[in-house]
C-alpha cells in the first residue's frame, strides 16, 4: 500500500492514499459532497459539475470526483462560491428538461429532485425549455423519456463498463446531445440485451421500467432481498413489492458478490410468471381421464394409498422421485429424505444432466 498523505477538507486534517480523489476521501470521512454523474467503479467523467469544491490555489472550482488529492491540499466543500455554482448548474439542468414530478415515475426517488431540495432552490432563474423528444414506449420492458435526461452518461457507462454490452453512447452535440443506441434507434430496434442496468443507474426519470409505471410510488414499495430463480449465478436482487405484487426487480450494489447489483433480462423482466393466472391454485386428481380440483387431504390420501400399494406389490425400487434444481436446498433435502426414509429407495435424481 502507498504511504498516506495529509490534506485538509473543511478544516479537518485527513490522511488518505495518493491517487484517491477528493470525493472519495470526503465520502470516506463522512463529508457530504453532492454528485449526479458520478457512479463508483465506472470512469470518473466530471460531466455534471455538481460535485465542485474550492481548492486553495486553484484557478477555478474543481470537480471533486476527478481531482486526485495532493500533499497539503486545502479543500472547502460548503462555501458560498461552491453553493452558488451548484445552484447555477442544477437550475440549468432543471430548465433544460421536462422535470415534471407530478407525472414522473421516479418522484420521490430522484437525485435531481433531492439536489434541488438540498440546495433550497425555489425555481430556476431560467425559462424552462424542454427539448420536446417523443416518449419511447416501443417495448414492454424499458421506457425512455429523454426530456428528463440530464446527460450524466451513467447509462452509457453502465452499458459499456459494467455490462460491457456496448450498445449505448452519446450522439449529437451541444444542446442536441442525447444518449441511446447507434443510429438514434429505440431500444427494441437496437442490439440491446435488456439487462436494464441503465434504468437502475439513471439518477432521474429518463430511463424507467415500463411494467412499474403507475404500479406503486417509491415510498409505497417494500423491497425484499432474495436470490434470483433463473440460472446458477445466484444474483442478489430486490423484489419491489406493492399491494402484494412484484412490480419490478432492482439490483443493489451494496449486496456485493456474486453480481454486485447487476442483473440480466430474465431476472429483471422475467418475473411475470409469479402472478400469472395460469398458476396452479388447488390440487388436481385425474378422474375419468380429466384433471379435477381436489382438496389437499384428498390428494394426500390418494397418493399415500397408491404409493403404499405399489411399494407393497412391486417393491420400493419400482418408485422413483425427480427432485428439483429449481427448489430450495431444504426442499431437496426433504425430498431425498422422503424417497430414502419413507419409500425406501435411492431412486432420486434431478435434471443436473439435462
Amino acid at each position, binding site marked *: 500500500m502507498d504511504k498516506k498523505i495529509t490534506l485538509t477538507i473543511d478544516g479537518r486534517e485527513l490522511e488518505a492514499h495518493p491517487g484517491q480523489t477528493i470525493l472519495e476521501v470526503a465520502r470516506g470521512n463522512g463529508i457530504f459532497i453532492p454528485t449526479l454523474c458520478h457512479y463508483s467503479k465506472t470512469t470518473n467523467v466530471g460531466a455534471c459539475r455538481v460535485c465542485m469544491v474550492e481548492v486553495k490555489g486553484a484557478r477555478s472550482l474543481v470537480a471533486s470526483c476527478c481531482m486526485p488529492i495532493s500533499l497539503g491540499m486545502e479543500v472547502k466543500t460548503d462555501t458560498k462560491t461552491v453553493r452558488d455554482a451548484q445552484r447555477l448548474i442544477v437550475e440549468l439542468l432543471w430548465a433544460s428538461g421536462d422535470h415534471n414530478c407530478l407525472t414522473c415515475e421516479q418522484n420521490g426517488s430522484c437525485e435531481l429532485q433531492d439536489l434541488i431540495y438540498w440546495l433550497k432552490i425555489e425555481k430556476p432563474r431560467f425559462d424552462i425549455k424542454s427539448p420536446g423528444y417523443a416518449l419511447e414506449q416501443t417495448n414492454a420492458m424499458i421506457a425512455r423519456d429523454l426530456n428528463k435526461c440530464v446527460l450524466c452518461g451513467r447509462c452509457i457507462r453502465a452499458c459499456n463498463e459494467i455490462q460491457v454490452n456496448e450498445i449505448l453512447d452519446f450522439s449529437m452535440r451541444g444542446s442536441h446531445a442525447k444518449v441511446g443506441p447507434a443510429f438514434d434507434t429505440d431500444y427494441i430496434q437496437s442490439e440491446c440485451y435488456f439487462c436494464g442496468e441503465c434504468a437502475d443507474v439513471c439518477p432521474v426519470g429518463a430511463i424507467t421500467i415500463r411494467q412499474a409505471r403507475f404500479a406503486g410510488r417509491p415510498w409505497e414499495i417494500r423491497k425484499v432481498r432474495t436470490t434470483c430463480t433463473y440460472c446458477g449465478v*445466484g444474483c442478489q436482487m430486490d423484489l419491489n413489492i406493492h399491494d402484494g405484487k412484484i412490480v419490478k426487480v432492482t439490483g443493489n450494489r451494496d449486496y456485493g458478490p456474486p453480481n454486485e447489483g447487476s442483473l440480466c433480462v430474465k431476472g429483471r423482466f422475467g418475473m411475470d410468471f409469479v402472478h*400469472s393466472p395460469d398458476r396452479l391454485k388447488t390440487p388436481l386428481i385425474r378422474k375419468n381421464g380429466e384433471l379435477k380440483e381436489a382438496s389437499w387431504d384428498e390428494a394426500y390420501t390418494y397418493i399415500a394409498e397408491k404409493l403404499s400399494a405399489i411399494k407393497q406389490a412391486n417393491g420400493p425400487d419400482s418408485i422413483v422421485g425427480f427432485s428439483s434444481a429449481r427448489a430450495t436446498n431444504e426442499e431437496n433435502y426433504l425430498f431425498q429424505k422422503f424417497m430414502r426414509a419413507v419409500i425406501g429407495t435411492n431412486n432420486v435424481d434431478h435434471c443436473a444432466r439435462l
Partner: protein
Amino acid sequence: MTNSIEEIEFTDAIFAIGTNTTENHPVIGAKIKRAVRQRGAKLIVADPREINLVKYATIWLRQKPGTDVALLNGMMNVIISEGLYDRQYVETRTEGFEAMKKVVEKYTPEYASNITGVPADDIVTAARLYAEAEAASILYTMGITQHTTGVDNVKSIANLAMLCGNVGIEGGGVNPLRGQNNVQGACDMGALPVVFTGYQPVGSDEARAKFEKAWGVTLPSKPGITIVETLNAAHEGKVKALYVMGENPMLSDPDLNHAKEALRRLDLLIVQDILLSETAQLAHVVLPAACFAEKDGTFSNTERRVQMVRKAVEAPGQAKADWKIISELSAKMGYPMDYATSEDIMKEINSLTPSYAGITYDRIEKMGIQWPCPNSTHPGTKFLHKDRFSRGLGLLSAIEYIPPAEVPDAEYPFVMTTGRVLYHYHTATMSRLSPGIMERCPESLVEINPKDAEKLGVSAGQFVKVSSRRGEVQAKSEVTTRVSEGTIFMNFHFKEAAVNLLTNPALDPIAKIPEYKVCAVKVEAA
C-alpha cells in the same frame, strides 16, 4: 466451480469452452468482458458457433461439435512438447503424467486439426496463451458435458488445468457454470441416486449408519437410477410410480416421443409444480407449489455460495411451499416430519453434512457462504484444492478421442447442436409468460448457414422441417454465419418446436448424460 465468480474478472487468461456465457450466465459474461476490455486478460473461446463472446476473444477455436477431447489433447501436446507445463506442480501434486503424455503425443496440432477442423496454428497459439498465463481459468458448461464422452471431456479439461498448475490457485480453476438456480444445491443435498447430502455415498456403511440413526429408519444400499434410466425402466414397466417435483421431463428429456410413452405407462404420476407443465398434463395427481418469491429457504449458486431466498408475496390459492407438501405427505404415509420453518430443516442439514455444518441462516443473512464450511466460525472456501486434492494427488487421465454416438450420413447429413438463448430459460414455462421477453424472442429459430440455406433453397424466416431418426419438428429458419456449414443450432425452449423430439438419448456411460450437443438431422424447406 473450484474457484469463485469474482476471480474471473481479475485473472490473466480465460479459456471458455462449450459455454455461451453471455446468453446463459449473462452476469458472469459481463465479468469476462470486463476482464478483457478493462484488464487486458486473454480470452480463448472454443465453440462451434460464433457466439457473442467471440467478439471479445483473443482467439476463437471453432471445433466441430463433439471433438473437444481431440482439441484439448492437441493443446496439451503443444504445451508438453514446448515445455510450457508446470513441472513442479505435475511432480508434486499429480500422478499419471507419463501415461497421459503417451496418449497426448499422438495429438500433434496437425492430427488434432484433422479431427476438430481448427487450424493447427490456432491450436498452438491457444495452447501458448493458456499455458503462459500466470493464472488461467477454464469455464465450461453443457457444451462440454452433454456428450457421450462428457466425462472424458471434463477429465481432459482437468488434465489441461493441472498440467499448467492452474488448480488450487486464485484466478485459476476448473469452473463449470451451473445452468439452474439450485442445481448445485440439489446435488449437494443428495438429490442423486448414489449419495446423501454432501456427497456421502449411499454405498458407505458408515454414511448409511449415520443417516439411519438420524432418521430412525433402515436405509437401502443399492444405488438408485437416473432420470433417463427411469424413463427407460418406465417404458419397460419396471418403474410403476414417479413423483416429480418441479421438473418438466416432457420437454427437457431426449427422444420425447419415447419419454411420453414411458410416462403414460406409469400406474401413478405425481407432479408438483407451479404451472401445469407438459409433464403435469399427463399426471394422475397435480400438487400446486409456491414459487421462489413465496417462501423462505436457500439456493446454492455455481460457486458453492449458499444464499437466502425470502418470502416476498403470498402463494396463489391453496399452493404451498414444496417443503410443506413433502412433510405433510410424509406424515400421511406414517412418517411425520415436524419442521416449523425452513430454518429447522437447515439445522438438520447442518448436523448431517460436514461441508454445510457452519452454514446457518443467521450467518448468511447479509452475504452467502461458500462451502466447504465445516464449523460456525469458518469463513467458507473461496477456491478448492489449495494444497491438496480431495483424493490426495490430482489424477491426470490418459484419454483418447471418441467420436459422437451419431454422426451425419447421406440420409441425415447435418449435425444438430442444441442450447439456450438469452431471453428464455430451459423449458420456458416461466420466461414465456413475460410479455417483454416474448416481444424479443417469440419463437424458436433454426440457425442455418447461408451456404446450406442456399443449397436447400431456404430463405431467412421460411419454415423448415428438421427431422432425425426419432422425430421431426418445424420452425422458422435464421440464416446466419453463427453456425458453420453442415451444422444447425436449435434451442429447446419452445414446445411448438420441441427439439428433444429429435435429440439422441445415447448416454455417457458414467454420468448418464444424454448427447444433446450432437445428433444427425435432415433439413428440408417446409
